[in-house]
């Protein structure tokens, strides 16, 4: 039993790494563009279909497919900004309208996937070895995903902290008008943020592809998880999201082993609701008084 528990904790931490990346993307878009990207998990799903199409249908080597998916998903992010978000911002749509538009987008993406790729499970069918450290067994693909996600997060940290562009992104998240007065063009920064968010869905899709087979409703649960993590950590708070991701990752994994996957979802939500009852602003969020 203790071995089982230890295994599930380790795997939960490994899952947490990728979830942290997922939450980071959603958080970044929320912080800068002020839009809750409800189709974020669906974009990851789209990325996995792209990897599948390239690797299996077009017979391109898996590694190359996993690299090609990054610019493709970056372009998807840019298209989303131009076709969905810009019109919303231009119409000064209220938050509910924005939320509904993005919720509508999830339906569009899921059904599009069903039309193009069908309802069956699609996977790239590669088997990476399982390695054991003492009594703990981990899949190499999970290890790659975990360290790859941490490395990506580190890269993003450097980008946000060391470059003028990163500085512009952070300042626009804190005060839009003030950022405009510094000579920052919000439209351009939104586009760059959505492209970055899109590339991140490509990165996650690349890491997920050797682990999961994809189907048209694959994205929904990841949107949900990302959203829970973002709210749990405090909306817009990147560090909070990072911590939240590991909490949710471990809770999901451990309760999945102890009970069943369905019950695990319930336990995650109970923990989430309990935290929000005590701290409505999230773990590291700042309470906004009106």
């Amino acid at each position: 039993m203790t071995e089982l528990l230890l295994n599930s904790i380790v795997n939960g931490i490994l899952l947490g790494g990728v979830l942290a990346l997922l939450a980071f993307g959603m958080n970044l878009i929320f912080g800068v563009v002020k839009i809750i990207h409800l189709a974020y998990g669906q974009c990851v799903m789209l990325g996995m279909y792209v990897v599948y199409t390239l690797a299996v249908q077009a017979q391109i080597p898996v590694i190359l497919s996993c690299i090609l998916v990054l610019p493709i998903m970056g372009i998807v992010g840019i298209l989303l900004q131009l076709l969905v978000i810009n019109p919303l911002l231009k119409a000064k749509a209220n938050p509910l309208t924005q939320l509904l538009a993005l919720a509508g987008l999830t339906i569009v993406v899921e059904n599009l996937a069903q039309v193009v790729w069908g309802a069956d499970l699609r996977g790239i069918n590669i088997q990476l070895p399982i390695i054991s450290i003492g009594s703990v067994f981990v899949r190499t693909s999970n290890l790659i995903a975990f360290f790859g996600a941490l490395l990506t997060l580190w890269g993003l940290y450097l980008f946000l902290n060391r470059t003028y562009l990163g500085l512009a992104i952070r300042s626009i998240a804190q005060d839009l008008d003030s950022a405009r007065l510094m000579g920052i063009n919000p439209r351009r920064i939104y586009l760059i943020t959505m492209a970055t968010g899109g590339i991140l869905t490509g990165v996650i899709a690349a890491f997920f592809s050797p682990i999961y087979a994809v189907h048209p409703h694959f994205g929904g649960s990841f949107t949900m998880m990302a959203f829970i993590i973002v709210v749990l950590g405090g909306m817009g708070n990147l560090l909070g999201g990072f911590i939240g991701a590991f909490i949710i990752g471990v809770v999901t994994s451990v309760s999945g082993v102890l009970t069943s996957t369905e019950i695990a979802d319930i336990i995650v939500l109970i923990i989430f609701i309990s935290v929000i009852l005590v701290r409505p602003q999230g773990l590291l969020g700042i309470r906004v008084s009106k």
Partner: protein
Amino acid sequence: MLEIEKLNVFYDEFQALFDISLKVSEGETVITVGPNGAGKSTLLKTISGLLPLRSGSITFLGHRIDRRPAHEIVELGITHVPEGGRLFPQLSVYENLRVGSFLPRARGEAAATLKEIYGLFPILDERKRQFADTLSGGERQMLAIARSLMSRPKLILLDEPSSGLAPRVVTRVFEFVHQIKSQGYAILMVEQNVRKGLQLSDRAYLIESGRIVKEGLRKTFLDDSYIRKAYIGL
């Protein structure tokens, strides 16, 4: 340098500014005084492009700027220090200054400008690693002014630099404004502290209910019995 002709600005149906015409020349310090809600801040926000105008024209160094977005107006050399400073609270003092030099033409000179600014405001050098929201009110105002200088401006729009500050700190902030003025920048200032503001200025405008009701040199304003009674309290 800056010429405003018959400017009309609305908030939806409510008209905030009526036929405002105003001028700032090279190296000049101009102050706009008037009661709360008269439209002084609106005027500055319209010049810097944060608010749209209904009619009229704004010309800066020969360029029409009244239909341009805010980030292009900064590029031409107008910087706006909003009321309360509007710093980026979760960026360090240094990062606030760095983002001030975001414009490509300012970036190349950022290191030199930064050195100049640390010379002018040594306290910012000492606190460069602190988050902006840990600074005192006076320090915040200094940082806001310093950040705007990082863009290498020609004209500085200064909105209520003394707002919310203790009297002793106000004196210091005005000393800084004076230092900046003596470096040759043109300044268009909005200020509640009419006496201190006038002492620093070359010319002044009085705005009431969105209209310019009086304009003139500093001396005429300081000697005007209506201004003295209503705004200086003598």
